[in-house]
């Protein structure tokens, strides 16, 4: 009786603490920390990645593949100003693929929120049982290992000098001559898409934006959009870029015609870097989607921080039937191939006869 009130207070405090822990997601965290099953292990692993808890995530790897923690973090968190360095893991989904005694394979779809929108990364993760816990078998990161060398780079660059004269007619330089060489209006389940290709016909570089205006039967405008990032904005002389303009929610039957407008600007530019797109093939990915896979290689000497791949897909008549674009979340180190993949709608994939890939790039100014 002497300590009765004290015991009541201690028990009540413990109950309240427990309730707070459950309320704060303690059960979920505990489940994520647990690695008693393959799914729990992967969930815990991805939760650590999401929380940038690299030490714990690394401790959940099976170390038989000699993966260095620095390499692992570099692959997951990005480096060299790549798109991944501006991204964070927003959400993930996990599906079991295969399981047998002591080994399992799970498919994960990681959704990264990045500076250019959300990016999906689908991977099959293999796991191995190690005592009471499951460990993730992480493939050794294939980081570029280019031997030290001197790479002479002598590509052109174009500079703009001087200023416009105030005297009428004395000092103007024309904007570059560009031409929309094809345009196709395609109806998709979620709206209308205008796509095609545009060429810089001039001998100077152009910074280009293409816009489209849907016109109603009475000739009045229905909607206007521009390409946003579905185009290579900087076009060198005679360079051709695909473009795509999305009109979500609009139907082809409501449109009488489309007015196209290409607005070029004269800008300084460099012909460096040259980026090749190699070994492109249309395949099915782990989720059964049609994708154009390949690798891009920075053939120049400077690091390309963010690369974007644009693909124009043609039917047997050479008509552009789809334009896809996707970002590569790794930086392009000189001479090192980096994989890319572009989604192709299933109904379009069956009609594709040919395709052409263009690589767009963004590099931070060098010091």
């Amino acid at each position, binding site marked *: 009786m002497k300590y009765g009130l004290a015991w009541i207070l201690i028990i009540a405090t413990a109950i309240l603490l427990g309730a707070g822990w459950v309320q704060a997601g303690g059960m979920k965290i505990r489940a994520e920390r647990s690695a008693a099953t393959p799914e729990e292990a992967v969930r815990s692993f991805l939760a650590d990645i999401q929380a940038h808890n690299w030490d714990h995530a690394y401790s959940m790897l099976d170390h038989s593949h000699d993966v260095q923690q620095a390499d692992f973090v570099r692959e997951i968190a990005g480096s060299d100003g790549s798109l991944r360095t501006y991204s964070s893991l927003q959400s993930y989904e996990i599906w079991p693929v295969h399981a047998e005694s002591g080994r399992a394979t799970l498919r994960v779809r990681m959704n990264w929120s990045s500076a250019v929108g959300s990016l999906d990364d689908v991977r099959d993760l293999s796991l191995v049982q190690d005592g009471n816990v499951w460990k993730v078998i992480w493939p050794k990161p294939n980081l570029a290992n280019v031997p030290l060398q001197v790479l002479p780079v*002598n*590509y*052109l660059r*174009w500079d703009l000098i001087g200023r416009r004269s105030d005297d*009428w*007619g*004395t000092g*103007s*330089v*024309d904007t570059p*001559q560009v031409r929309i*060489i094809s345009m196709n209006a395609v109806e998709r389940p979620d709206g209308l898409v205008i796509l095609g290709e545009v*060429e810089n*016909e*001039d*001998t*100077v*570089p152009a910074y280009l934006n293409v816009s489209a205006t849907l016109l109603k039967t009475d000739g009045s405008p229905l909607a206007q959009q521009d390409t946003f990032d579905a185009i290579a904005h900087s076009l*060198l*002389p*005679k*360079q*051709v870029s695909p473009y795509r303009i999305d009109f979500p929610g609009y139907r082809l039957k409501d449109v009488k015609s489309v007015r196209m407008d290409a607005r070029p600007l004269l800008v300084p530019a460099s*012909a460096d870097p*040259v*980026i*090749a*797109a*190699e*070994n*492109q*093939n249309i395949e099915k990915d782990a989720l059964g989607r049609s994708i154009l896979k*390949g690798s891009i290689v920075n*053939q120049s000497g400077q690091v390309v921080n963010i690369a974007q791949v644009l693909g124009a897909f043609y039917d047997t008549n050479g008509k552009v039937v789809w334009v896809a674009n996707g970002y590569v979340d790794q930086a392009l180190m000189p001479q090192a191939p980096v994989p890319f993949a572009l989604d192709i709608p299933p109904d379009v994939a069956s009609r594709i006869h040919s*395709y*052409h*890939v*263009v*690589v767009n790039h963004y590099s931070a100014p060098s010091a």
Partner: protein
Amino acid sequence: MHRILTPCIVLAVGLLAFAQDDVLHAPKTVTAGNSVSISTSGQGSATFYLLGPSRVAKRSVQLGQDITIAANDVASSGIYQAIACSSSCSSTVFQVLPAAPARLSFLLHPSRVPVSNGNAINATAFVFDRYRNTVLSSAKVDFHITLPDGPTMTRAGQTSRGITWFEMGSTPKQGRLQIVASIADANEPRVIQQVASDACHLHMTASPSGRTVKLETDPIRDCAGNPLPDGTIVSFTKIDNAGRSTVDTPIKKDKASAQFQLSGNARISVACGVALGNELSVGGGQ
């Protein structure tokens, strides 16, 4: 300008309401920049107003004496109104005509043009006098055209309401095309760059070496034989067992080159803009 002209016009209309018989006598036309003398009749002092297109002046004058208007006061062409007011007002109107042609504004468009392009160049000249009045009477403007390969020719244009223009095609040779518009002592030079047109007879050769193939084009020229400028993009495409590979590479020293890894037999094509080149079949991997 409106803030000045509007009250002046109101004032002029008000003064004219009290206008008496003509006491001012001005010439009907005057050349811009020349002083003008207006004779007056009557006696006593009066206030003199001069209302022009871009100028208003006011001063005291003695009636019966000539009023001299300085050259600067009649520099702008147009209709002028002279008003003299004492006990009542009197007015006269005269026209100031543009002086002799002395200045040119010259527009030459575009600043770059592909070679052998008919009527692609437009030259327009506007003729002004030394006071920047548009010379409306017909005047002859000479256009001295210097072609990229050296020869010079002259073309004359007669102005109509101060403007003359002509069109011409670009020549087959790329380079600097200069046109100088001249009238009196005024010369206005402008330059157009004639640039190579689309690639013509685009041709590449392949040098396989083991599992790689080096590709190089012949010097890339347009149909008139002008080399395409360095930096122009040439696309190489290879299709083999590994799939399709493409590289957009700029021309360097008239040629473009690329290198591919081979996986079995490959078909390789080349294009520059919308101009397609030859296609090669290369056996690799052996």
